[in-house]
């Protein structure tokens, strides 16, 4: 069977040209401030060619490597989240007339649709969850406007970081759906998969060649290898019942003694959606801007009601975060809120490891373990 799905590395620029020629604003991974971010991308030589990332809890470093590849890294601090759910944006504006009348108006919506190149499977899974949250029964018009035209070129992950555990959450390293095109990167070029009609229209205009059986096998093996190399994992299954049965576990206080309650984990989390609203009045008092900004359940203000802070202690905030992310998300969105990207480990200033905390809290309790057979204890081991 003929597979005309191979794109030479030297022809990747053509893909960018076609997409931007179709009217998209193209974003792709680029180096900035010692990390990889999705930013405006015009030329392939702006991609992080020859760069890899070394991540561990509390640590992220880029390292140069002898490789012609552009996507030989795991992920940067930001997923797609800031491009659809903006860190700070105006929801509406109000003008006050001389007579005190108030006129409310919506901000202008974005003009050019976005195309994002080099999207990871974990971040695609997170996008699907943000869609469920923001495009539910009462859709968010600002998220919806950016999401509507979004074009995605995924790249299957072959270089997981030490912090990655997407294989354990079932969200990677292969991008299974939600993309227009997906690429497997090899040294000499890319295997191209089509995921939508829009993707098909782009692929038809690419100078694709026949791929070899050896190329296809290598690409598949690299993705499998990326799954096999991951060492961290969350406890199996729906953790809701276990977590809510252990709300007084000693580990909540233990993790609270290390946690700075800074909210970094929630900022880098590709599925966290909390945001706070704030009014920013103009100095001349004739108008005011109503702005929303990412918020975190690790802040004091998050649980404030009429003079009371419901979660005054850090342990209560960590428990709120984990029981929601790994527990109540199942009720609200039909699955866990964790996609295994590992960002909350890497960007935690004190290196708290979500998988380790979840394992500790969900491990069989001493008196439970004694009642069970040896096999059950073996399975529950971290």
């Amino acid at each position, binding site marked *: 069977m003929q597979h005309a799905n191979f794109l030479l590395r030297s022809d990747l620029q053509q893909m960018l040209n076609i997409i931007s020629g179709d009217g998209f604003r193209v974003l792709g991974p680029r180096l900035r401030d010692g990390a990889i971010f999705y930013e405006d991308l015009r030329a392939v030589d702006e991609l992080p060619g020859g760069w890899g990332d070394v991540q561990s809890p509390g640590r992220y470093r880029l390292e140069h490597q002898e490789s012609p590849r552009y996507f030989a890294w795991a992920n940067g601090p930001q997923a797609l989240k800031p491009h659809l759910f903006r860190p700070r944006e105006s*929801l509406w504006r109000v003008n006050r007339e001389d007579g005190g*009348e108030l006129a*409310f108006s919506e901000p202008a919506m974005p003009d050019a649709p976005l195309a994002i190149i080099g999207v990871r499977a974990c971040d695609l899974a997170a996008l699907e969850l943000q869609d469920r949250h923001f495009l539910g029964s009462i859709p968010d*018009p600002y998220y919806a406007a950016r999401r509507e035209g979004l074009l995605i070129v995924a790249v299957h992950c072959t270089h997981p970081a030490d912090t990655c555990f997407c294989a354990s959450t079932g969200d990677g390293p292969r991008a299974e759906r939600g993309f227009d095109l997906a690429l497997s990167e090899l040294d000499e070029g890319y295997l191209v998969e089509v995921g939508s009609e829009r993707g098909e229209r782009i692929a038809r205009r690419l100078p694709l060649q026949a791929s070899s059986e050896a190329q296809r096998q290598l690409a598949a093996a690299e993705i499998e290898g990326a799954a096999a190399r991951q060492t961290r994992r969350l406890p199996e299954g729906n953790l809701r019942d276990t977590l*809510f049965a252990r709300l007084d576990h000693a580990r909540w206080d233990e993790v609270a003694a290390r946690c700075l309650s800074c909210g970094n984990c929630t900022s880098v989390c590709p599925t966290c*959606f909390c945001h706070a*609203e704030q009014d920013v009045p103009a100095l001349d008092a004739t108008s005011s801007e109503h702005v929303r900004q990412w*918020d975190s359940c690790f802040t004091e203000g998050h649980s404030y009601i009429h003079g009371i802070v419901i979660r005054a202690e850090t342990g209560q905030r960590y428990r709120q975060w984990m029981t929601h992310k790994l527990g109540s998300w199942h*009720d609200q969105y039909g699955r866990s809120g964790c996609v295994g990207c590992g960002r909350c480990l890497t960007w935690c200033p004190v290196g708290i490891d979500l998988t380790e905390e979840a394992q500790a809290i969900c491990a069989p309790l001493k008196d439970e373990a004694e009642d069970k057979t040896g096999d059950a204890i073996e399975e529950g081991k971290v």
Partner: protein
Amino acid sequence: MNAYLPREAEIVERIQETPTVFTLKMRLTDDAPYAFDAGQFNMLYLYGVGEVPISIVAGDGESLTHTLRAVGRVTHGMAGLRVGERIGLRGPFGRGWPLREAEGRDVVVVTGGLGCAPAVSIIHHILSHRERYGRLTILQGVKHADDLIWRAQYALWSQQPEVQVLLAADVAAPGWGGHVGLVTALFDRIEFDAARSLAMLCGPEGMMRGSAEGLHQRGLAAENIYLSMERNMQCAVGHCGHCQFGAHFVCRDGPVFAWPEIRELLAVKGF
């Protein structure tokens, strides 16, 4: 349809209920229709300051009534509003009281503090559709006797047929005719058929927990006890995350819940 965008409302009446509690009656200045269910809330916006979720006390085609206590930045500012001034309003939001489920039954309304404001709409509804409901028992608890607002209204309600009003204050004042102590101590005085009753509770969480337990002990089934919850709410449509409470967003899935939906987490500090 942008659920975040407020509409303009004009203050048409202002009543000072206590030194910190005040009532604002307002009218929407646009011609678009507005309808709400008892127990739902609006987001009220004070120009240049921000929004707060406030339950709807009453409303008709002409106006809407909200009762507020000055506790935070926005409500302190709103306390200074005068007739003719403009604010923003969006709503109604959330799931209200189970007034349809309550038809044909005896109804018990237990409120604490300013909790009576969201429950007034229940009482108005039942009294204006009297034939649809059985006996109505209204219990209200306050910390100090002086905190009780709408005394005349309670007196009026207590004179209606098949209506029982029981008042409690932790601290009495001269002339206080009600019970001194917790409102839950009045439960054995409720005249109702527990098996065919439905209860609606609104007030501080401790009071609601105690009331739910107390009514349950008197024979009311757990699923026939409803509570109105409060949490930090900023978007009112289940997006901003502040009011997440287990499987629910209080703003969208509540604020009124059947007790079994929230019973477990209600007992845990920090959620």
